[in-house]
């Protein structure tokens, strides 16, 4: 399988007007992802994992400077034109976010929010876009998708909202899905369901998945490979099974130990 995404020497610095020296968010991060591969990005809050995820789609907020290279399907994401990035986003690489409620437009019906992905990428026929959206809402496990498409985000439950966002992200069958803490804001039981859906969709489509989480448990059940971020540096890059068995870096060890208190006691 060929390389889908390559991150080479990525550095992110936050420019603050007050201080002359910028704050470093990510330092010299490199890793790559093959087609259809699942990778977990593990790190504590503040380790720079969300910034990493956003930089893959070139969605960093203004004021964050990026150096290095991010190559996705032959496109240089950091230097690509606005138009080139736009045609990739939502079509070849998609993203789902941590807070499903705030990530949805409160004034737009959820069906329209899914359908507009197709419309942004050349679907002129509004009826066809809508039909595709309703079908996709059904495929992410939402019952009565036709009626649900007419609702507003605040009328849905947390898990339903995240499914709507997932439907929008998967509508055009992307090659890579970036999921930034997709289950952290959900109830525990709903978390498991959404995670299961994510895994099922990934396998069904043979799509690559980059899952960002602070929870090794979530990553362990979903991703073949794991990279560990610690204080802006990539400190470990290993198959998930190997990481669980023999973590190399002290921080990885601490994370692994944290979910295995019983074994440690033995």
């Amino acid at each position: 399988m060929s390389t889908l995404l390559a991150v080479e020497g990525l550095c992110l610095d936050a420019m603050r007007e007050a201080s002359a020296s910028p704050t470093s968010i990510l330092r010299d991060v490199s890793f790559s992802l093959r087609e259809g591969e699942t990778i977990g990005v593990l790190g504590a809050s503040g380790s720079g994992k969300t910034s990493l995820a956003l930089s893959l789609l070139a969605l960093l907020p203004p004021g964050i400077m990026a150096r290095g290279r991010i190559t996705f399907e032959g496109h240089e994401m950091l230097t690509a034109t606005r138009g080139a990035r736009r045609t990739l986003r939502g079509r070849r690489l998609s993203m789902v976010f941590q807070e499903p409620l705030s990530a949805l437009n409160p004034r737009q019906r959820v069906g329209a929010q899914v359908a507009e992905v197709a419309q942004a990428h050349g679907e002129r026929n509004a009826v066809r876009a809508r039909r595709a959206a309703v079908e996709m809402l059904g495929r992410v496990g939402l019952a009565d998708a036709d009626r649900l498409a007419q609702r507003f985000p605040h009328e849905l439950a947390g898990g339903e909202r995240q499914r709507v966002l997932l439907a929008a992200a998967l509508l055009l069958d992307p090659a890579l899905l970036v999921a930034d803490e997709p289950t952290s804001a959900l109830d525990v039981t709903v978390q498991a369901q959404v995670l299961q859906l994510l895994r099922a969709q990934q396998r069904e489509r043979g799509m690559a998945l980059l899952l960002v989480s602070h929870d090794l448990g979530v990553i362990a059940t979903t991703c073949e490979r794991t990279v560990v971020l610690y204080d802006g540096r990539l400190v470990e890059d290993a198959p998930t099974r190997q990481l669980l068995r023999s973590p190399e870096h002290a921080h990885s060890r601490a994370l692994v130990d944290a979910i295995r208190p019983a074994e440690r006691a033995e």
Partner: protein
Amino acid sequence: MARLLLARLFHAAVVGAIVATSVFLLLQFAPGDPFATALDGADVPSTVRAEWRARYGFDRPPGERFLRWAQALAHGELGYSASRHRTVAAVVADAVPRTLLLVGTALALGFAAGIGIALLQVRHHQRWPDRLLGALTLLGVALPEFLLALLAMTWLGARWRLFPVAGIGGLGDPAAWPLWERALDLLWHLALPAGVLALAVAARVARHQRAALLQVMHEDFIRTARAKGLGEWDVLRRHALPNAIGPVIALLGLALPSLVGGAVLIERIFGWPGMGLTLFDALLARDYPLVLAAVLMATLLAVVARTVTDVIADVVAPRRVRER
């Protein structure tokens, strides 16, 4: 919706009663009456003055006159305008549509232009189009309307002779004018007063709309929209604007009543014979029935404006209704 309309109707009645009473009271403190200029000369015998005042009931105590006026109002009678020699109802019926035309045109143009300017500014945030338009809207807010009006009159009207500087047109025999020519003439006369009002409105709307849009641009769903591959214009139009239009609609509710009153100045400068000019002339002539009717009409328009704004807000922002 029905409950809202009913509540507003009640609201209008209460406010109308309070406004009518207080205006009537205030007028009692003002010197003179409709006959002051015509009759109070040395050459008019006092018996004649008394007779005319008695004929129109001005010899009665204020309390009785108020009751009579209110009773007539309840029967739909607004009284007789001594300065115009017509019934007050006829004067108002002529003036109200003209004011609505002026203010309506100004608001429609002003809001469309203001929202457009704000979208353009946010699209090019902190680059030269934003800065240039920001400076212009600040100027528009700071310049008094009468100054704008005089500038427009001097240059567009007098120097370049593009537009008439006063009046409403349609002189001569209406039968000699085809309908479309009269309409065109009316619009031609409308250009300067409506344009000046619209500029003032646009500047204020643009500043409010820009601030509201910039606040929304930080929201997560804007990031989602970009992640979907939407272009910046679609992000602005489909996601930012619907969530940022609320404050500007509220501004419409505030602007409408003040414009009905604020148009007094513009109507006076451009000789536009609407409610503002009518009120102004009526005050000078001490034509009390006409003053009262004009003030009542302005109150009514204010309440109607608030109701219309609420309905618009409900349509544009459905969430508000559902949560209520």
